[in-house]
């Protein structure tokens, strides 16, 4: 018996993208899980499995490990204070502790982002006394997945951010989680209205005569890029290839027939409160809802989500001194730079970091609950997703890089082990094993990707062994 979908997430009819791109016919299946399901609602009518999705979710500046890591392992562990917010979805969550980042050791925050997302040491751009910056040295794992599962969706992948107070002056390593290569960061959309427009206001009516002309216009642009390629260096040729790929993607989107997603009202939340702080919780709710809409309409299957930035200055305005009665006369950090506070290894400051971590985990749990309430087939979106949640450092005050806070959530259509609860690696297993497990959990043929990460000769994140504790 097929379950009724919640009203606002009602899925569109089956649609096909049709069009002519550069003279060649292109057909692209869009959304429509409901129409695509068989009568049992547990698989696609044309025989395939339900699509699996990947969400990578990061919060900045680490946690307090003594309040994060449960003291017991296995499924019946007791939730710690920082994990308490996931109680309603704990059966979907695997707490992964004791993992190590083997490309770490050069620069806090940068190490963690590059290690977990790309499995490779980042490239340092620190020439001659100019301000420090870094970039990824290879593709992030969500993009490896997107290249496989994103081919037929409207967006190959989506990048979303919540806090705008992320660090912008140390290069793309800290700015975004998704990178298609060293010079190809995919920046996160941090404006709810802009994300809404990108998702729901970009479709053309199917009879719009401008659609074909816009595609032809891009054909002329493609010709220019092709000609230019002959004149420039190998590095620039690679940049032009990325440009060409992006133009093809836009052509595909212009010629797409709009999915019949029930479009939610345009978000109406101010990016800043009158006192200058960001309404983090409200922004998160709006962004999470848009992400779930995009996934449930099958507009994309791969999303990266930066709640607060690594080394970022998000403000936790919900934590004024009155929230800390045990510290009479405590300083007001409700408008302070989160990264700055994280470095003070003092009782009150670390209590503040602990409490801010709870706020971050609440935001994560909110996303999981939205996934859970989005029904599809016999289950829900969480059943069909792999979600990797982590931070860029283990603890912020000393940039520790062993034992990162990591949660792997969702069942990925049965690809991920159930009843894991809390798993603690006895051997300081590499974090990249978890990334590789997430790749294999989502792509149609797990054997299609057998390795992940790489080395620069000194730091080595390479793995061919997906984390056995999570991958079924």
């Amino acid at each position: 018996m097929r379950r009724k979908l919640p009203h606002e997430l009602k899925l569109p009819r089956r649609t096909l993208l049709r069009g002519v791109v550069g003279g060649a016919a292109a057909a692209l299946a869009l959304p429509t899980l409901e129409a695509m399901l068989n009568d049992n609602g547990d698989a696609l009518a044309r025989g395939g499995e339900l699509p699996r999705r990947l969400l990578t979710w990061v919060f900045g500046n680490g946690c307090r490990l003594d309040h994060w890591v449960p003291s017991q392992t296995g499924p019946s562990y007791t939730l710690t204070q920082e994990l308490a917010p996931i109680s309603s979805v704990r059966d979907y969550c695997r707490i992964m502790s004791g993992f190590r980042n083997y490309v770490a050791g050069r620069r806090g925050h940068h190490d963690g982002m590059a290690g977990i997302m790309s499995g490779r040491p980042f490239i340092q751009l620190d020439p001659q006394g100019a301000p420090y910056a870094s970039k990824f040295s290879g593709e992030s794992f969500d993009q490896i997945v997107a290249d496989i599962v994103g081919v037929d969706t409207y967006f190959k992948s989506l990048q979303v951010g919540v806090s705008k107070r992320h660090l912008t002056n140390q290069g793309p390593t800290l700015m975004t989680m998704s990178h298609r290569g060293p010079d190809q960061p995919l920046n996160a959309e941090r404006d709810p209205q802009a994300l809404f427009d990108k998702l729901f206001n970009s479709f053309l009516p199917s009879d719009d005569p401008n659609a074909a002309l816009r595609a032809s216009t891009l054909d002329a642009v493609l010709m220019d890029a092709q000609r230019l390629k002959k004149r420039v260096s190998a590095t620039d040729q690679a940049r032009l290839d990325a440009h060409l790929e992006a133009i093809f993607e836009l052509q595909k989107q212009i010629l797409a027939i709009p999915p019949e997603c029930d479009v939610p009202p345009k978000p109406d939340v101010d990016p800043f409160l009158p006192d200058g702080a960001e309404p983090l919780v409200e922004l998160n709710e709006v962004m999470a809802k848009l992400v779930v809409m995009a996934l449930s309409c099958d507009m994309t299957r791969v999303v990266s989500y930066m709640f607060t930035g690594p080394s970022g200055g998000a403000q936790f305005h919900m934590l004024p001194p009155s929230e800390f009665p045990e510290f009479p006369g405590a300083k007001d950090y409700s408008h302070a730079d989160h990264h700055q506070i994280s470095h003070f290894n003092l009782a009150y400051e670390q209590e503040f970091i602990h409490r801010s971590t709870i706020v971050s985990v609440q935001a994560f749990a909110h996303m999981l609950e939205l996934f859970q309430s989005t029904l599809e087939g016999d289950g829900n979106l969480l059943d069909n997703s792999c979600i990797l949640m982590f931070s860029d450092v283990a603890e912020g005050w000393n940039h520790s890089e062993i034992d990162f806070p990591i949660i792997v959530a969702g069942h990925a259509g049965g690809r991920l082990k159930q009843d894991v609860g809390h798993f603690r690696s006895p051997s300081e297993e590499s974090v990249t094993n978890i990334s590789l497990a997430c790749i294999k959990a989502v792509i149609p043929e797990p054997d299609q990707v057998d390795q992940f990460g790489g080395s620069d000769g000194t730091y080595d994140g390479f793995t061919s062994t997906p984390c056995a504790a999570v991958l079924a």
Partner: protein
Amino acid sequence: MVINPAPAQMRRLLGRQYVQTVRMLLGDAAATVAKPPPDEQLNGFQSIAASQFAMNDSLVRNYEASARDVAAAAVNDVANLDALLGCTPVTTIDEPCYRTFIERFARNAFRRPLVEEEIADLLDLGRQSARQLGDFYAGIEYIIAAVLQSPSFLFQVEVGEEHDGVQRLTGIEMATRMSFFLTDTGPSEVLLDAAIAGELDNAEGVRRWATELIEQPTARLAVKSFFEEYLVLTDLTTAAKDPNLFPEWSPELAQSMRGETLRLVEDVVFNRNAPIHELLTATYTFVDSNLAAHYGVTPPAPDVGWTRASLPLDQGRAGILSHASILSKQAHATSTSATYRGLFIMERFLCTTMPPPPPDVNTELPPSSEAPTLRERIAVHQEVASCRACHFKSDNLGLSLENFDAIGRYRETENGATIDASGELDGDTFDGVQELGALLASRTDVLGCMMRQLYRHGTGHVEVDGERKALDWLEHRFAESGYRMKSMLVEIAASELFRTVGVGQ
């Protein structure tokens, strides 16, 4: 002189360059709707990011939307349309008229003559659009949209031609490089014509044109934009400040602060053509009513937006390091930061930086109940040798600005204790920002560093070893000019270094 310049890299137009070039090509109405994506920065400058990062889906989507809006605005700008076309269409698909338009508009936009194949592609698009929509001007609109999305428009492409063992930029490549460098705008039709006629093939010709370009209004904007990046003021208005500690902080006040610093830049560089180091020592500034209240000086008359004012001497202010803009930006939301301020001086004026903190470092500072001033708190920190090694130089520079709080207000005490703003740099001692500014202004390496920053910005890369000798030579030229920025701009543009690139890799 042996020059081995950095390899050539395609450089995407910065947002401001895109808008101003659209303005030059298509007029104000079109420029108003030009909405390029926001710029990023790398190693301190947007142009360096623009030389490395590739396009992606979001950027391409953004440029497409902007190009379509600009194209529609241009064909609806009836007053300017005839001049833009250069012909009067007699049929819906008037091919000669399209060709006339393409040969001129696309040449100016691509900053080079087009080959026949390129003209034919654009002609096809014009014909197809006109036929489908039954309107000659639809063809023009789609041609404009295509040109403005093409990499030939969106990127500066510098390949050069081999010449005495170096890759010398061609005349039209040089026109593009110097025009963006000096005016943040693509080369004008006249400059392109001059380049094609060979006027930019030697240093003298480049110097002559550069001298002309820096007198244009866009040159003032370009220099101010450079300083805005160089002094890290681009996102000052969204800086976070604790409203309980700093209730007067607002985006408007921040905007005034930014305006003050850029006005002093314009005054020193253009109005007075004074030595650039006066930026570090000026005892006057510019204030609006917001800032006059902030500094405690006489506000401008009600009908005057901005006025020149003497900095209050009793606060020991002098030069941009005592401007509220820089002091606010280089601070935390709740407190000052000697490290931010010191590192800013090191990176921006001494061209040196700090290595990363060692792994597992404890950056804890003692509470203010035990150590009332930041200097005392840092002193405890600096007892640890591994911290002291890197923080000594930066923090001791930054501590000399402690008389100014996290939004640049003057103060003599912190937590009731008197602030000590003395410091030492390479054996020279100073007390407070006035003496620090004077010391920096007297050092030739600081002036050389400022010039190198301009070079980084203008070429989109941090200088490499093979460029050092040429930069040293340029420093001499800069000194000979009495460190005048306008001369420096012209000398950089006309230098052998600026006119060559390395072979791309």
